[in-house]
């Protein structure tokens, strides 16, 4: 029997945030498709003596991304210089973050096509600047600095991916988060969002990480990245099976040959000599701002999450959005699971959480289950009371009722919401929906 191997994959995603100006200068960063070198100034051209000046909007967008990925925002954060020579980098260094990133230690739950959920841990989300664009023509290299200095957020995961399907789901989910947050269009075709992967393989059952990893870099299409990862997994397993030792190296993708190729071995690995950027004072992050951004980040979480809650529990769209914004949705899900067949509808539970009838921040779900079971018999709404409430709601909301009659399905949710409000969340949403439909036939 031959040995079985599992891939170990970590991802680095770079996303350009959609500020009006660049990270450290006031040049417009609306550069896509514009004449080359028309969006530059001494700062982003790296001219001697030019000083960087931090864009506060970019910092907020980076924090929002981190918060949406459940990261902690650092109390204090610093930029560092990442030194290397390459023509896309005019200064000889990129302003980036290394030891004091803005956001650290998050996670994201990825849902696959089959509904299978897995958790990907986020190591960090930090702020840096994009580089110029190079075009290679007839043995020479042309440089356009329009993109130089555009705010770029790098999101680094732990090596938690096991296959390319998961990579696809993660990238899709990230893109949705970026768009919902309004921080980036995340258009891969335009290079708004770029992926790099670190790949190694280990024998099934082995807990420790392999002592090497192959970086896949400079692959500017998502499709090619997936192909490259799949090729790499196969190549590495075959190498190990034939007794080879694998090394730390950087590889690219040759689409014509459909294979990865060595770009840089460990011996040639970059030595970036990071050191704190002396031209930029540190950032002391305002905790009130973090709180505000946290709420905005929650409100903008992917529609899929809202849809899942609505579909799974039959609650209203509005309730789902509100709970996600509050951060009470995990409590809600746990509570509903524990309540089981007690006849208390999920919508009632949701409304109680939203209206603070349930103290979800301080109590355990077990406490609340006891409380609710005790109350259930006393507080149930009689069908007369429910009908009366619905009649009143329809009378108070003539236009919405007319909209529903005219075929607007959304109007029904609004009416149910109003009934819930009127009955302080004691009505059964499904029952209310049926009665409303009946009445507005």
């Amino acid at each position: 029997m031959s040995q079985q191997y599992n891939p170990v994959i970590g991802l680095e995603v770079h996303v350009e945030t959609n500020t009006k100006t660049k990270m450290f200068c006031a040049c417009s960063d609306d550069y896509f498709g514009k004449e080359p070198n028309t969006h530059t100034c001494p700062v982003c051209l790296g001219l001697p003596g030019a000083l960087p000046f931090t864009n506060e909007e970019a910092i907020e967008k980076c924090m929002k991304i981190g918060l949406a990925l459940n990261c902690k925002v650092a109390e204090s954060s610093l930029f560092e210089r990442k030194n290397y020579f390459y023509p896309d980098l005019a200064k000889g260094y990129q302003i980036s973050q290394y030891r004091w990133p803005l956001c650290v230690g998050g996670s994201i739950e990825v849902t696959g096509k089959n509904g299978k959920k897995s958790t990907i841990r986020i190591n960090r989300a930090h702020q840096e600047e994009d580089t110029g664009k190079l075009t290679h023509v007839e043995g020479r290299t042309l440089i356009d600095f329009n993109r130089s200095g555009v705010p770029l957020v790098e999101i680094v995961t732990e090596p938690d991916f096991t296959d390319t399907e998961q990579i696809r789901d993660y990238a899709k989910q990230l893109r949705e988060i970026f768009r919902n947050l309004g921080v980036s269009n995340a258009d891969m075709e335009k290079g708004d969002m770029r992926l790099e992967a670190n790949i190694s393989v280990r024998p099934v059952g082995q807990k420790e990480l392999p002592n090497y990893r192959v970086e896949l870099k400079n692959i500017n299409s998502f499709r090619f990245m997936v192909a490259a990862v799949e090729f790499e997994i196969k190549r590495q397993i075959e190498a190990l099976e034939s007794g080879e030792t694998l090394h730390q190296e950087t590889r690219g993708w040759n689409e014509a040959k459909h294979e990865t190729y060595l770009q840089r071995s460990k011996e040639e690995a970059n030595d970036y000599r990071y050191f704190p950027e002396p031209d930029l004072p540190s950032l002391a992050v305002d905790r009130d701002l973090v709180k505000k951004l946290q709420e905005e980040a929650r409100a903008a979480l992917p529609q899929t999450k809202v849809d899942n809650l609505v579909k799974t529990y039959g609650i209203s769209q509005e309730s789902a959005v509100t709970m996600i914004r509050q951060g009470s949705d995990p409590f809600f899900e746990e509570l509903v699971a524990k309540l089981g067949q007690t006849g208390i509808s999920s919508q009632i539970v949701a409304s109680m959480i939203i209206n603070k009838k349930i103290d979800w921040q301080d109590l355990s779900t077990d406490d609340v289950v006891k409380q609710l079971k005790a109350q259930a018999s006393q507080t149930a709404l009689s069908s007369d009371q429910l009908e009366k409430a619905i009649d009143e709601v329809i009378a108070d909301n003539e236009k919405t009722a007319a909209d529903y009659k005219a075929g607007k399905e959304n109007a029904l949710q609004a009416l149910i919401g109003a009934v819930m409000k009127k009955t302080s969340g004691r009505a059964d949403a499904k029952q209310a929906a049926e009665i409303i439909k009946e009445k507005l036939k």
Partner: protein
Amino acid sequence: MAKSTKIDIDHVSKLANLPLPDEQKRIFASQLTKILDYIEKIEKADTKNVEPTFNVTPNKNVTRKDTAGTCLTQDEALQNSKNTKNGQFVTKGVFKSE
């Protein structure tokens, strides 16, 4: 090439992107070694109760609003370049695919 245990002058010259003739490598290796000796002395200082300083000003959070200013024109941006083409800077080819 003079060998120094403290300085790998070939590595340093590569990192600095400065190709140096052997004679200069010898000179710089000896000068850089002296600097490292000096730093070794500094490292002996007791800094147990001293906060690291990365910035000599007491400033924090010096940021600006996200409002666009004026950029250089293409001609201005390129004016100091010896070699340009189609509005772009031209440099030696750096592309190696395989």
